[in-house]
């Protein structure tokens, strides 16, 4: 996995809600059943804020959010949709439960980048190394850095998120008697 991303900065404010701003929860249900396929969910990411976001966003683009990104009921679907779009995420802060969901969604992230808002504006071209925490604003010639994720959590993201990582764990702990 390449931990470096280069693309457009999509800058948002504080307190983006999981169930409305990031992805309207009602859209998760198809025929009454929740859908967790990133290829479906990606069509609805941020559309309540920017109606054509899924068409305009490109793999490698980076969402830069303010404080408490992903507040609210910790539903993962919007984060899966972001991963489906191939986005990266930098936030000033996220609630702990959302932090967990970001990792589970396999979304490269720098979730506690205090003053990121001071270094980037919407539309800037960014190059981000999620392995080291280095951010380079190519539009403004500014560099800054944040604490990267611990290795154990990056490993989950590297495997593609929660389910592939759990599959590995199931094999590791030899629970074959529960397997087909």
């Amino acid at each position, binding site marked *: 996995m390449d931990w470096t991303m280069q693309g457009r900065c999509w800058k948002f404010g504080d*307190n983006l*809600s999981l*169930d*409305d701003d990031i992805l*309207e*929860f*009602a859209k998760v249900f198809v*025929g*009454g*059943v*929740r859908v*967790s396929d990133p290829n479906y969910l990606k069509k609805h990411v941020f559309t*309540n804020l920017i109606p054509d976001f899924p068409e305009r966003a490109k793999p490698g683009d980076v969402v830069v959010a303010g404080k*408490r990104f992903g*507040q*609210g*009921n*910790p*539903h*993962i679907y919007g984060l899966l949709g972001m991963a489906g779009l191939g986005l990266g995420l930098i936030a000033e802060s996220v*609630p*702990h*439960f959302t932090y*967990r*969901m970001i990792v*589970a969604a396999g979304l490269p992230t720098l979730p506690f980048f205090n003053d990121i808002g001071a270094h980037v504006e919407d539309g800037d071209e960014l190059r981000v190394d999620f392995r080291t925490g280095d951010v380079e604003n190519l539009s403004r010639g500014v560099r800054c850095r944040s604490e990267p994720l611990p290795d154990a959590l990056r490993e989950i993201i590297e495997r593609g998120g*929660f*389910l592939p990582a*759990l*599959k590995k*764990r*199931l094999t590791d*702990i030899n*629970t074959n008697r*529960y*397997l*087909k």
Partner: protein
Amino acid sequence: MILSCPGSEPVLGSIISIVYMGFAMGMTLTEKIMARASGRNELRAGHIVYPQADLATIHDLYVVEADRQLTELGVERPWDPERVFVCFDHDTIPQTVAVANRARQIREIVKRWGVKYFFGPGRGQGHVFPMEIGIVKPGECVLAYDIHVTNYGAIGCLGLALVFEFPAVLATGSHWLKVPETIRIDLSGKLPRGVGIRDAAACIIHEIGPDAADYRVFEYTGEALAHLGVDARVKLCNLPIEIGAKSAIVPADDVVAEWINERNINSFEAIHSDPDAEFAETYAFNLSKMEPTVALPPRPENVAPLGEAIGVPIHAAYLGSCAADQYEDMAEAAEILRGKKLAPGVRMIVTPGSQEVLTRCVEDGLMDVFCEAGAMVGPPGCGPCAIGRGGPLADGETCIATVTRNDVGRMGSREARIYLASAATVAASSVKGEIADPRDFLA
């Protein structure tokens, strides 16, 4: 705009436990429960552990998705079907054929899983009735799909939610968890008449706030608990999750022992935090100074004095959800509604939390009160709190409700507004047709 809580007496730092240098400190209740579940003698906040679930709980909205994920993992059945609880509380009465088909699919999956505890629609809200019939017990560690599992803290049981990662629990009985720090909350005094425990819980989450609450357990202590039954404790344990707390718990005491004896369901060993356990912060609240509150749309932590919303016209009122569907909540509303009618143009839905609650409401005449007032009584379960199921709000409507959250779209239309309040305030408002103070109805 936001409330300066009249009952709060923050004592940050001053009561933080004394550290005896050179000696091991005691453990919090949460550390003890997680240590036992992880097969360890000692545990501290910050440790990463894999606690084994005494019970794993999941509801109808997630069973199909969970089974799909298990299938992807090659897992046919849960690790221990004797310790799995499945309940139909969200879509109690399917509104579409698609949902009815999903319900059929859930029954097939549950049969294949062979789970010991399966409860069909109408049995009750899954974060309420398992306590009433002894499926969950003090001192246990319950791992759940749904975040409101924290309700079980009312009887001293630690509920921890894993949401999307819940299939790991179904597959192995466990999943990684960081042991959370604990915030101790000392409660004193008695609530004034017309002020609900929901008001106190709202005041507490507002005062502590999302930054301090994040990934911590709220543990309640203090002399006020002697006057607070299990129903009241559920409210104290339900609200903190809305601002990001990991869980909430009240150590099981004589009140819980009596409640359990009345139902003849279990025996248990009382577990408490050690006197020298380390708490991240300690707060104190005096319940006698509390006043009615309201959470303004669109976030549950937007708690304000009720006065800020008085007079707002309402179209709908709702009493229910796992935050307010027990007998005491029903009684609190019925006291206001007795002999009165809903205001013209206002509709009201009431959903009791369980068949036990419903039966007791019938026996005690509370159902007569609701029916004579003109309210609709729905089946025990989550009611419209679950994205408006069984009674969504229309565009432009305003609702006052006891539900857990008031996010945009939480009860239906994205163009509707939800105010959160106590059962008494919901009842008073439904009679007046606008947000009203229940104390005006209690002469």
